[in-house]
């Protein structure tokens, strides 16, 4: 992990409130594992609001051209600032952060399930899995057509996927966790990797309770101050036998956790 300044090569609108930021950084491209993230400064130098950096997963890595990208949704003032960044400017960020994703040698089949912007880190994980010869099935769910263009990126990675939208505006109308519930028997020997809103993760945890022995990773999000394990701000509750829990830091103990051990309050 380093404090870096990377040249912005593009900041493209991808859909309603959705952007892809491309940054030149040999260091990130060489050292980043899928699932890791960077912490971006969202203010010009000297401006003190917003004060804290914002965490974003790495979406793509192009080792040939030393370019990585971040796919992000405009939510508040930090991402609003990012949306105004232009080609040629510099991005001030720290990375790579968190423990990255490593494919399990023993497991051949992976089911990736993303809700909303949760598909961002999963896309890079999917790519990695494909490259290591795994069999993957990608399930994605969105509210609407904001992520329409993402399918173009996905098909380059995975042939086996299903997209749901709540309003049916693209893909199938519906939500992926309902599909999962109905079809989980087909994926009993898959490892799951999920990322999305807390409610979705909680739902899936519930569904998987009926399949003891299933292995599922979840990429968690929590508000962060430092992103490097110092402030103790980003903790979540992780089960600790018997019946207890311990606090784990999303930024350095995660962001990937065993879904079945996460305690949602």
């Amino acid at each position, binding site marked *: 992990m380093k404090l870096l300044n990377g040249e912005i090569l593009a900041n493209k609108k991808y859909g309603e409130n959705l952007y892809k930021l491309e940054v030149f950084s040999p260091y990130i491209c060489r050292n980043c594992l899928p699932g890791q993230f960077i912490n971006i400064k969202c203010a010009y130098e000297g401006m*003190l609001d917003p004060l*804290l950096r914002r965490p974003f997963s790495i979406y793509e890595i192009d080792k040939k051209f030393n370019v990585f990208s971040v796919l992000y949704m405009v939510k508040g003032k930090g991402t609003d600032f990012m949306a105004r960044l232009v080609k040629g400017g510099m991005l001030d960020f720290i990375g790579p952060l968190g423990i990255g994703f490593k494919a399990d040698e023993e497991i051949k089949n992976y089911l990736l399930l993303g809700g909303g912007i949760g598909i961002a880190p999963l896309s890079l994980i999917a790519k990695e899995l494909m490259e290591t010869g795994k069999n993957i099935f990608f399930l994605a769910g969105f509210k609407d057509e904001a992520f329409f263009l993402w399918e173009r990126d996905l098909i380059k990675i995975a042939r086996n996927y299903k997209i749901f939208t709540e309003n049916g505006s693209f893909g199938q109308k519906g939500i992926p966790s309902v599909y999962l519930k109905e079809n989980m028997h087909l994926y009993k020997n898959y490892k799951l990797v999920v990322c999305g809103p807390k409610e979705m993760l909680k739902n899936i945890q519930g569904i998987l309770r009926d399949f003891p022995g299933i292995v599922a990773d979840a990429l968690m999000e929590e508000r962060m*101050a430092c992103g490097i394990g110092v*402030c103790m*701000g980003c*903790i979540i509750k992780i089960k600790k036998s018997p019946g207890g829990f311990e606090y784990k830091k999303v930024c350095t103990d995660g962001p990937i956790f065993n879904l079945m051990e996460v305690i949602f309050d």
Partner: protein
Amino acid sequence: MTDKNTYETDLSVKFGKISLKNPVISCSGTFAGGLQYSRFFDISKLGAVTTKSFSLKKKDGNPSPRIWETASGMLNSIGLQNEGIDFFISTQLEEIRNLGAEIILSIFGESAEEFKKIALKIKPVLKHLKAIELNYSCPNVKAGGMAFCGVPENIRTITSEIKSIIDIPLIAKLSPNFGPVTECAIQAKKGGADAVSVINTVTGTAFDIDTYKPRLANIVGGLSGPAIKPAALLQVYQLAKGKIIPIIGMGGIYSWQDAVEFLIAGAAAVGIGTVNFSQPDAGEKIIAGISEYLISKNINSINDIIGKAL
């Protein structure tokens, strides 16, 4: 970046029985033991590293969410999550020493008793420490914490009891949440403290207007960062005017200019906290900035600017 061996000006400071190679100290709870930050710069360049506050036993701290960003600041309600003083002694102390940094150990007790027990535990390692900071001012715990500052005599009693157990410079860390810190500083002095750290965080809160829930599970949190700088600076200035006790000034320092502002307002040294989250190399940059400032003004020693605005 200026290299640590090429400063052309004398940055060393001495206050009470504490001598530091320069006045820039990391604030408790914002730098852990420095290990992470050593990835960004050589933390031995700092005047000292102040550890997270350690309690007698491991503390889990408060439930999540624990942080919320505010205008030019942040609220935290960590609640002193820490691994306990034994962890410091057995593990972290060695880690920081290996990095070559001077150490100020911050400790926290819910009661005078707990403070004393911790003091007993650290007796064997005192030689490795520059000073002990007594955290009398955490806003995020049920017992002890900033409540000590609500009854300033507590500060005298506990400080002097600790002093009778361990012979090492003591720093009392004070809370701004009861108005001016003057009375607490007087009591710290009476109790035998060598310096005071001013200020710990300012209490505050925030709510979610959609769920009506507090943004922090603990409801109350401590505000830090640039937002509190004017208030912190005034506390330092007013205390320095009274010439009661040396002051480590902190609260909202973001740049070397801010650090200099605290020094001219009378701080003998400065603490940098929240800025580390935003700019992990802040410590190095602030030291270099102060040094270049002095050089540009032809000032040979940092001591010539301390209290200049008084």
